[in-house]
């Protein structure tokens, strides 16, 4: 039973719709005028539509329109603004191309770009015009364009089959998907041929050639059907998308997923196109994988380049692309298929001779054996297209290896010659077997096979009776030969396999190690400079490369770090800029701006581009190597993470500083308002009461009021003094005037300053008589002692005693102020020196919370330290320690006893 619940679009669907809409937002819209051959009137239709839009008040310009000299087309072009074409100098010929920068700068609503499949002149920004169009769309400009059906990549080989003409200029199918609207421009083939004969399409000579080669009625009909079908399937797609987004139930096929594996074989391309077509028909998503095997590392450079091209092709046809590493292609393929819910695996029919199947099970069989519930489509690929891709050049043969294996067999025979008197022939075979093993280990697979063959022959010739002939009398020896040969082959292939594996592992290890080194270096890099240094060092080491790191600075990319001797001219910077803005690789080894000297990879994390990594590789082949590109991309990702980390760290630090400052300011404001206002309250209150002539205050009460006001005025004054001191200390305006001081005098001054507060309290001062003069800023140090004493007075009972002591120990002057109050809780002992920290006391004695922090500031400015500790038997001991240099002490003594 169907419920409302089920009728709703699934969350995934909605998300997909939302993402698509989001991606569309801000992007230009593409309208394609699709035809099936030249001359159907695409350009004409496009211009007509453009004029209409212009009539509607839209800003339309012609970015590039090819009229082929047709008068009716020229007529339509009149009145439209045409962007002047750029002229690209190629081998002395000036080729006209669309001036994409001019169009971007002009920023029209709609740009007309004819001939979507056009290949740009070498030296243009992009290889293909459709890439220009993508950039225009990316910049938010709507584009009207024209294209013929045969230019679409997935139809490329079908068209070639129908017409016998291979179309070289292709457009990825996703542009068709990208288009918001496809306008099919269609006329019957008879009319088209009529127009061709009238010379309306090509000049007569060319027209004759075209009729012969391409404009055959059969071709045209087939092409027409293709284009109508494509347009219809597009309409079908839109309808389905519409129904799906609005949850209209329909006969959806179960979500199919196709998987195709490419190997770098010349047939891979055909396999990819076939899969794409299948996927289209089934409305299925499709994946393309390349599986690196240890043996694959031996493949030629051409082969690798082909794999790379195939994967790019698959990507441009809309496949999800992956590169895997495994020893077994079949296993890896099945594994990937299972993980990605693939329903069908597409494989090509085997092309190898049947006898080889005895040696090695064909891939198709392996896949079918392991595929389980997954369907396997075997498609025929061999034999049909004649477009053979040149085979990879054979590996250069090292003849010396074979010579060595020959010598090895000869040597073995010589060794066996005397031994045959003592050993049975079957044991002599063992010696030959040793030679085969040696060859497998030392010389490689083929020489080992040769060694095995030669060994059989040599054994037969020299040691099997009758000797010195290949004739064999005892048929049992055939078993020996067979065993020797088989064991030789098996051992050599095993050894070579394990060697290849080891090589592959070593490659991997090198990669992993270089990634590990980079991430380790990045982990310890605390700033941007460290990160860039680490990046430079590691890439230079792992790739024998020169690198440049460009980071945005005020909206522009700037070279932040580059290898020595690497200079980027304006053109290179422009390529880097393109990679940064479009967040796609550009430059050498890519499809975009390939004439650049460096490969530029965007450094991006979570979608935002943070910069660009430019690389000039030492080895040309590395530009197209999967391995090296992947490693470089991994490097860029690591760098992005590190850079982002530094950014975030900086932000967090600033936030923390800001927060600390804010809380301090708050404390300061609180303290100031409290400490300034409180005394003012009693002062103004007292003054107010005294001013009031009619107040019935007794003389005694008046005096009380006056005393309170007087005390608070003093307090206010002290607080302001403290604030000023603190400000001076913090602003760095404090300069110590170090002069030799009498410590007893210092204590005396402090006591004198506090005379009124001390009252009748007993103060015990202990200063040893021989204490030398100590160099210090006496005014400030007196302030320290005053503050400490003041605290002692304030926080202890009136009758309790206070002790002041000074002594010299180990080159340190120690000043102590001790009281018999209640002390301070242990965990507050350190914090009392913090600014605005007040030990909570029940009576709420009015401290400013500044006195002790001023003390600490002054003592530390002297290079000393201050601390508080609770005394045994109750009370607090404040200890100030000032360093006294040796020379100074001597000097002081000298002066002292001179008199």
């Amino acid at each position, binding site marked *: 039973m169907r419920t409302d619940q089920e009728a709703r679009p699934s969350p995934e669907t909605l998300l997909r719709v939302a993402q698509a809409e989001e991606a569309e937002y801000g992007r230009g819209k593409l309208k394609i005028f699709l035809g099936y051959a030249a001359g159907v009137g695409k350009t004409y239709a496009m211009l007509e539509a453009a004029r209409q839009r212009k009539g509607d008040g839209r800003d339309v310009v012609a970015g590039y329109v090819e009229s082929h000299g047709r008068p009716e087309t020229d007529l339509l072009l009149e009145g439209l603004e045409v962007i002047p074409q750029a002229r690209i100098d190629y081998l002395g010929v000036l080729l006209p191309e669309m001036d994409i920068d001019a169009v971007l700068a002009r920023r029209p609503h709609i740009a007309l770009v004819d001939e979507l499949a056009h290949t740009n002149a070498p030296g243009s920004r992009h290889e293909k015009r459709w890439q220009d169009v993508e950039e225009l769309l990316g910049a938010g400009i709507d584009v009207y364009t024209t294209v013929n059906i045969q230019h679409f990549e997935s139809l490329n080989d079908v068209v070639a089959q129908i017409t016998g003409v291979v179309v070289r200029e292709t457009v990825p199918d996703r542009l068709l998907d990208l288009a918001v609207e496809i306008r099919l421009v269609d006329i019957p083939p008879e009319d088209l041929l009529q127009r061709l004969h009238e010379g309306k399409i090509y000049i007569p000579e060319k027209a004759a050639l075209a009729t012969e080669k391409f404009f055959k009625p059969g071709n045209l009909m087939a092409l027409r059907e293709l284009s109508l079908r494509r347009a219809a399937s597009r309409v079908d797609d839109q309808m389905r998308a519409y129904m799906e987004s609005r949850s209209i139930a329909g006969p959806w096929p179960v979500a199919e997923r196709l998987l195709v594996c490419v190997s770098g074989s010349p047939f891979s391309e055909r396999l990819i196109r076939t899969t794409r077509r299948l996927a289209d028909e089934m409305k299925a998503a499709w994946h393309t994988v390349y599986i690196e095997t240890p043996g694959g590392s031996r493949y030629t450079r051409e082969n690798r380049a082909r794999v790379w091209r195939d994967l790019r092709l698959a990507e441009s046809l809309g496949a999800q692309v992956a590169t895997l590493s495994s020893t077994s292609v079949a296993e890896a393929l099945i594994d990937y298929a299972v993980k990605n819910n693939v329903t069908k695996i597409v494989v090509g029919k085997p092309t190898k001779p049947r006898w080889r199947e005895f040696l090695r099970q064909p891939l198709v069989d392996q896949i079918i054996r392991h595929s389980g519930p997954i369907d396997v489509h075997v498609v025929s690929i061999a034999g049909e297209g004649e477009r053979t891709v040149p085979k990879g050049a054979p590996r250069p043969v090292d003849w010396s290896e074979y010579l060595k294996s020959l010598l090895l067999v000869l040597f073995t025979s010589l060794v066996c010659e005397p031994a045959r008197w003592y050993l049975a022939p079957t044991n002599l075979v063992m010696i030959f077997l040793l030679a085969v093993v040696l060859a497998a280990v030392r010389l490689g697979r083929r020489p080992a096979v040769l060694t095995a063959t030669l060994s059989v022959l040599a054994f037969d010739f020299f040691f099997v009776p009758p000797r010195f002939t290949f004739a064999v009398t005892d048929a049992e020896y055939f078993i020996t030969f067979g065993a020797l040969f088989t064991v030789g082959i098996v051992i050599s292939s095993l050894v070579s396999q394990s060697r290849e594996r080891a090589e592959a592992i070593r490659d991997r290890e090198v990669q992993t190690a270089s990634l590990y080194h980079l991430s380790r270096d990045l982990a310890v890099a605390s700033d941007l400079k460290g990160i860039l240094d680490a990046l430079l060092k590691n890439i230079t080491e792992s790739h024998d490369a020169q690198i440049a790191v460009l980071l945005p600075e005020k909206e522009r990319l700037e070279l932040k770090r580059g290898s020595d001797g690497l200079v980027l001219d304006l053109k290179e910077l422009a390529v880097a800029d393109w990679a940064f803005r479009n967040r796609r690789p550009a430059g050498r080894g890519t499809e975009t701006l390939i004439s650049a000297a460096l490969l530029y990879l965007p450094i991006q994390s979570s979608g935002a581009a943070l910069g660009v990594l430019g690389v000039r590789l030492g080895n040309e082949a590395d530009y197209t190597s999967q391995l090296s590109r992947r490693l470089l991309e991994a490097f860029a990702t690591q760098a992005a993470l590190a850079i982002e980390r530094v950014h975030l760290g900086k932000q967090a630090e600033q936030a923390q500083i800001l927060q600390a400052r804010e809380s301090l300011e708050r404390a300061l404001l609180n303290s100031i308002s409290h400490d300034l206002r409180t005394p003012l309250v009693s002062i103004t209150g007292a003054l107010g009461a005294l001013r009031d002539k009619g107040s019935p205050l007794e003389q005694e009460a008046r005096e009380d009021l006056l005393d309170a006001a007087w005390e608070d*005025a003093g307090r206010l*004054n002290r607080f302001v*003094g403290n604030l000023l001191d603190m400000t001076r200390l913090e602003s760095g305006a404090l300069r110590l*005037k170090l*002069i*030799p*001081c*009498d410590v*007893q*005098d210092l*204590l*005396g*001054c402090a*006591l*004198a300053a506090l005379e009124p507060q001390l009252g009748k309290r007993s*103060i015990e*001062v202990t*200063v040893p008589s021989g204490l030398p*003069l100590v160099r210090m800023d*006496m*005014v400030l140090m*007196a302030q320290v002692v005053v503050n400490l004493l003041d605290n002692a007075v304030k926080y202890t009972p009136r009758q309790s005693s206070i002790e*002041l002591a000074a002594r010299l120990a180990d080159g340190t002057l120690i000043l102590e102020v001790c009281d018999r109050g209640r002390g301070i809780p242990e965990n507050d002992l350190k914090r009392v020196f913090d600014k605005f920290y007040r030990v909570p006391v029940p009576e709420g004695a009015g401290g400013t919370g500044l006195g002790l922090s001023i003390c600490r500031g002054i003592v530390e400015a002297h290079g000393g330290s201050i601390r508080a500790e609770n005394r045994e038997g109750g009370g607090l001991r404040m200890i100030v320690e000032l360093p006294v240099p040796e020379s100074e002490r001597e*000097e*002081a003594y000298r*002066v*002292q006893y*001179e*008199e």
Partner: protein
Amino acid sequence: MSSMKNNAGLPRLLMVDDEVTILRFLRSVLDTGEFSLYQADNGHGALAAAAAVRPDIILLDLGLPDMEGVEVIRRIREWSKVPIIVLSVRDGEENKVGALDAGADDYLIKPFGVAELQARIRVSLRRSLQQAPEPVYRCSGLEVDLAQRRVLVRGEEVQFTPTEYELLRLLVSHAGKVLTHGQILRQIWGTAHADQQNVLRVNIRNLRQKIEEDASRPRHIVTELGVGYRLKSD
């Protein structure tokens, strides 16, 4: 410049400050009939008043709108020995030393107590009205007979080194007045020793040990932090 009361015979007191509230406060606490009061609110006014009124004592603020107080002191000192008491909010020692070295007799930091101000005024006036220093100085247990070079501490004669005695004599002859380190050093050891502060400190300490009851809480020789010393007089 203005004069409040023109009582001939009374000591003439000139107050210089640019703050109206301070002038008003000074006026109200000093208008006790002991002085005839004059006031000025800038440096040039102060100089003109000093020349016209010939005051017996001047109370001077350092932060005047038209010229620095120290400059005012210097100009007055060019022709007059009138006692000058500086009243200032500037509590930096270099300000005090600067003013005292320029010739000021005393330095009081705002805010100050009225009693303190009156005492300082009295001391300065007495000293300036004195023609010659009294031959015998007496103050709470300390008796210094300059004519006979005899010092009694709580009735007992005490012996001094020549330097100590010179120092004591200097302090006694300026009793009540702050002497800066520089002034003392120049007077006793000569200009060459003007920065030998440690010698001065050691001698002061020795002196205190001989004349003070408790050297840790001196009653006679008071240290003016960062400025100099003063012999207390009652």
